[in-house]
């Protein structure tokens, strides 16, 4: 295939990318970016994890070490599948705090410390440079494959020149679409869409090659499996240390690689996309690695012995004469490389400009108490610094590629880079899960881990006799053999990568935890720690600005914000905030809440640390202090207490209302009772009076036979006795009700009292067979009360039983139980009892069950009993569920409150 054609295809492909990115930007500007912000696009954009290293290098890796290549995908799969642990929290924090990069996240978490931002930026640049070089190298190599294969014997132009052209083109694309807008939260629609397209291209390309290899060359699935068994990869030399270590490193890298953080967190438009990505991205990885092993095995089988296994994806179709397939594969590799470089350089440029260039420029231009007016065009500065940074990052990659010679296996470079970025992991996870993590701890851990990584892995990798001499490698620096880079503290025989990983991570974690334990975080740090760790708990929102900032001039802040956000955006923001405070115009009050919101808005453009510093400069007030924190906590506590008090009060009111309602009900009922009582009593008095009057009128007749006269006189006498009894009872009741009864308190044996009562009651319906069951031994006890009254109660109960018990063989059981200082006497008969609805009224006056005439009482008996018992300090209750009518008389053995009674 002519090289010119290849270049032409590349140019066409790149121009398609341009058009797609441009169209996406246009749509987003017109506000029709819905499908651009969908979950599939988000998932596809994550695929920049699969760089040219995956596309070409994985096959080479598999050809060298068999199945081990798969660990690079297992780690990310676990992290994505476990999104509920870390990713969800990271994305939420990223959205809430408007994080612009991983350096910004770390710096913001640890008190907006720019030192940490610089450290993380340096680490990211250091670790990414070889990676970018790797991409340039793979593109150059793939060009070389086509060139060397041309039948015309067409000579490959200078490899360096190819790499330069690629780097330049990528820089142009990235600058065009990556630095259009400043607010990182507005996101790069064009870039993300172009990357999603590239993700599809590389997946299709690799799948096409894989299908061709498996079904075209390998003889189907079973054929390929047989070939694997027959190849030199058949034996799986599993080294558990490397297996677990590489899985861990890959999992860490997916969280900490600047470009992964960019697409995972910064470019995330909706948390729900993460749910989709949690399975869709692992699926993508699975598809990307599905055919790696077959391609490697078939390549080893068919290609000449000296062929570079890293390029099997290209050379295998070429050698089989499938030019178009090879071209597709080439485009896939080209996509992988370009998408990675574009996003990585955007992420790195954001970090460099936010954490290095802008703070430096501010420090130079803005000495001390500067006015906002002296601030030049920050917006232009930041954009320019990003553009230059993109160029710088690519230039670094290019130079690394030129000087490293580009000979190493792709996989080795990628892994070195992974271990470097994994050093951010402890600070990252500690920052979002541990409130006690401090910025000194984080700095110590980062620097320590970075140093070990540099010494034990990075520098030795640059090349023999490069930055570390052979002598140092074998004998250690200054002859100190325990400091040999690949055998620290005399631990030899370990795989160099695993050795560096173990040492760097242990040093990192140890310094991080120890440093955090012994140092004290500042107020801002504690505030941010709280906000990050408890991000799902929305109630813990406190402003990062103290009360000392009242001096801030809204006008200065507006001037400054315009320079960063652009005039229109800044004015809109200020106007909205003023409106929210109920003010017209553009100048809201500079309350701590407003400052916090403004800072967050600015942070989306220039990073948290810079935004904080800028507002601090303008407002000239100190940021939040420990006193402020305590004051805020106190306020919250006060509000809590106040609302608890309110609640208690409302409960109390409800209780009072309930009590009032009950009292009212009772009063209403009593009033009805009183009316009923009056009509009842007139009726009761009237009946005997009527008969007395009638019979006395008859007696007035002169000629009445003697026996009739005697009978009528008898009736009159009987009726007036009934009347007297009724009046006696009423009088008695009234005395008892008013607690004015004279009590003759004396000692008696309960047994005797019950016997007396049974005797006296036997005159009631004497014709009836009636049996009384008693428990004599239990009855013997001395009781100190008004015995006559008590006997009256007993008589009443026994005669009631005699009267009303409707059993054929009436039996009354009298049970006596002593309960401490009280005694309970139960009268239980075997009749049908009292219906439930009547139980409530039997103790009321004139309450009579059944036919009143048959019973022949006024219905005052139980009412009197109740009043007597109340006077004796006891009670009488109906005892339900005993198989018949049952009453329980309960009274103290020794009457108390006698004196109280007397005093009344």
């Amino acid at each position, binding site marked *: 295939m002519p090289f010119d054609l290849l270049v032409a295809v590349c140019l066409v492909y790149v121009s398609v990318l341009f058009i797609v990115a441009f169209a996406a930007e246009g749509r987003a500007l017109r506000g029709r970016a819905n499908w651009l912000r969908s979950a599939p696009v988000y998932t596809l954009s994550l695929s920049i994890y699969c760089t040219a290293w995956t596309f070409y290098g994985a096959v080479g890796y598999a050809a060298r070490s068999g199945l081990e290549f798969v660990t690079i995908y297992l780690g990310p799969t676990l992290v994505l599948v*476990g999104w509920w642990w870390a990713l969800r929290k990271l994305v939420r924090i990223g959205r809430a705090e408007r994080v612009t990069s991983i350096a910004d996240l770390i710096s913001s978490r640890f008190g907006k410390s720019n030192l940490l931002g610089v450290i993380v930026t340096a680490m990211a640049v250091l670790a990414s440079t070889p990676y970018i070089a790797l991409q340039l190298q793979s593109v150059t190599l793939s060009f070389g494959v086509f060139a060397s294969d041309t039948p015309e014997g067409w000579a490959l132009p200078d490899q360096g020149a190819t790499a330069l052209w690629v780097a330049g083109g990528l820089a142009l694309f990235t600058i065009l679409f990556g630095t259009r807008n400043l607010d990182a939260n507005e996101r790069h629609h064009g870039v993300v869409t172009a990357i999603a397209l590239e993700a599809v291209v590389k997946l299709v390309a690799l799948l096409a090659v894989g299908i061709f290899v498996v079904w075209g060359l390998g003889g189907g699935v079973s054929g390929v499996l047989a070939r694997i068994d027959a190849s030199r990869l058949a034996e799986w030399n*599993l080294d558990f240390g490397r297996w*677990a270590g590489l899985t861990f490193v890959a999992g860490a890298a997916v969280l900490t690689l600047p470009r992964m953080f960019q697409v995972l967190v910064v470019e995330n438009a909706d948390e729900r996309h993460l749910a989709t990505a949690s399975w869709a991205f*692992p699926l993508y990885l699975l598809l990307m690695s599905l055919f790696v092993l077959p391609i490697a095995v078939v390549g080893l089988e068919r290609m000449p012995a000296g062929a570079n296994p890293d390029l099997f994806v290209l050379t295998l179709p070429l050698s089989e004469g499938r030019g178009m397939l090879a071209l597709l594969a080439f485009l896939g590799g080209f996509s992988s490389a370009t998408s990675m470089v574009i996003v990585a350089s955007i992420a790195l440029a954001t970090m460099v400009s936010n954490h290095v260039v802008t703070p430096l420029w501010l420090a130079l231009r803005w000495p001390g108490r500067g006015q906002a007016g002296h601030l030049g065009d920050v917006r232009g500065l930041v954009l320019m610094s990003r553009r230059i940074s993109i160029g710088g990052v690519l230039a670094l990659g290019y130079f690394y590629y030129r000087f490293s010679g580009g000979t190493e296996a792709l996989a080795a470079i990628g892994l070195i880079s992974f271990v470097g970025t994994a050093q951010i992991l402890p600070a990252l996870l500690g920052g979002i899960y541990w409130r006690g993590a401090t910025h000194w701890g984080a700095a110590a851990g980062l620097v320590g881990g970075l140093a070990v990584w540099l010494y034990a892995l990075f520098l030795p990798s640059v090349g023999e006799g490069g930055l570390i001499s052979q002598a140092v490698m074998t004998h250690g620096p200054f002859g100190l053999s325990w400091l040999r880079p690949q055998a620290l503290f005399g631990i030899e025989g370990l795989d160099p990568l695993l050795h560096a990983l173990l040492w760097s991570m242990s040093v990192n974690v140890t310094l991080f935890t120890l440093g955090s334990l012994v140092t004290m975080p500042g107020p801002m740090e504690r505030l941010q720690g709280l906000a990050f760790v408890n991000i799902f708990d929305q109630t813990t*929102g406190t402003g990062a600005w103290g009360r000392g900032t009242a001096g801030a001039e809204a006008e200065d802040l507006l001037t400054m914000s315009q320079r960063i956000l652009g005039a229109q955006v800044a004015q809109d923001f200020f106007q909205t905030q003023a409106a929210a405070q109920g003010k017209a115009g553009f100048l809201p009050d500079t309350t701590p809440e407003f400052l916090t*919101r403004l800072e967050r808005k600015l942070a989306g453009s220039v990073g948290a640390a810079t935004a904080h510093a800028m507002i601090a400069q303008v407002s000239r007030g100190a940021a939040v202090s420990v006193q402020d924190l305590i004051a805020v906590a106190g306020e919250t506590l006060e509000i809590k207490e106040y609302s608890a008090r309110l609640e208690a009060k409302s409960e109390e*009111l409800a209780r009072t209302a309930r009590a*009032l309602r009950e009292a*009212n009900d009772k009063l209403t009922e009593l009033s009805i009772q009183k009316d009923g009582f009056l009509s009842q009593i007139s009726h009761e008095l009237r009946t005997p009076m009527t008969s007395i009057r009638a019979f006395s009128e008859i007696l007035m007749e002169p000629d009445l036979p003697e026996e009739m006269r005697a009978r009528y006189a008898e009736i009159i006498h009987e009726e007036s006795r009934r009347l007297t009894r009724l009046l006696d009872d009423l009088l008695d009741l009234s005395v008892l009700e008013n607690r004015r009864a004279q009590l003759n308190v004396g000692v008696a044996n309960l047994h005797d009292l019950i016997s007396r009562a049974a005797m006296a009651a036997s005159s009631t319906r004497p014709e009836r067979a009636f049996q009384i069951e008693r428990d004599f031994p239990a009855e013997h006890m001395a009781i100190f009360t008004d015995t006559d009254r008590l006997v009256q109660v007993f008589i009443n109960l026994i005669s009631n039983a005699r009267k009303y018990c409707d059993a054929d063989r009436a039996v009354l059981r009298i049970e006596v139980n002593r309960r401490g200082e009280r005694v309970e006497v139960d009268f239980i008969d075997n009749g049908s009892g009292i219906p439930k609805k009547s139980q409530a009224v039997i103790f009321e006056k004139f309450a009579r069950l059944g036919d009143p005439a048959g019973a022949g009482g006024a219905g005052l008996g139980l009412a009197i009993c109740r009043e007597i018992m109340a006077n004796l300090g006891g009670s009488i209750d109906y005892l339900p569920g005993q198989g018949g009518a049952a009453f329980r008389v309960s009274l103290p053995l020794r009457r108390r409150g006698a004196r109280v009674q007397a005093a009344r």
Partner: protein
Amino acid sequence: MPKTTAPLFLARRSYRRRRMMDAARLLPIFGLALWMVPALWQPASSPAPDTARGAIYLFGVWAVLIVAAALLARGLAPTLADEEEPEGGPVVLPHLGGGPFRGAPPSLVPAPETETETTPGPETTPGPETDPETQRTAPPAPLDPSKPGGRG
């Protein structure tokens, strides 16, 4: 704000959701364990060729994880949607903004015209929390309806 007490027992739907969150947390641990299992086979020391078998095992586990994650993501998506809601509103804390209280007085509007003296003004923000309660629970049947009193 005192409503921070989470319910002790959940309805069936929320209970399912909680368990699904647990499953989402357990899934990566499960996957990690399965992927570390090959170390126990010690394929390096076994004489039989095991790369092919190992690949089938690893990719099989992978597929199972993807299917499980997809099912969980489907189940958990509504949870995320619910959580998003409070975030969409203003950043102001709801209990400090006075919003909910301002909504309370309308419940008093249909209240009897009688107790005009207890109707709280809108500025006594915490008041309405308690007042409607007492008004609603006040005795509906006065002791003496015929008594004219000072009402109305």
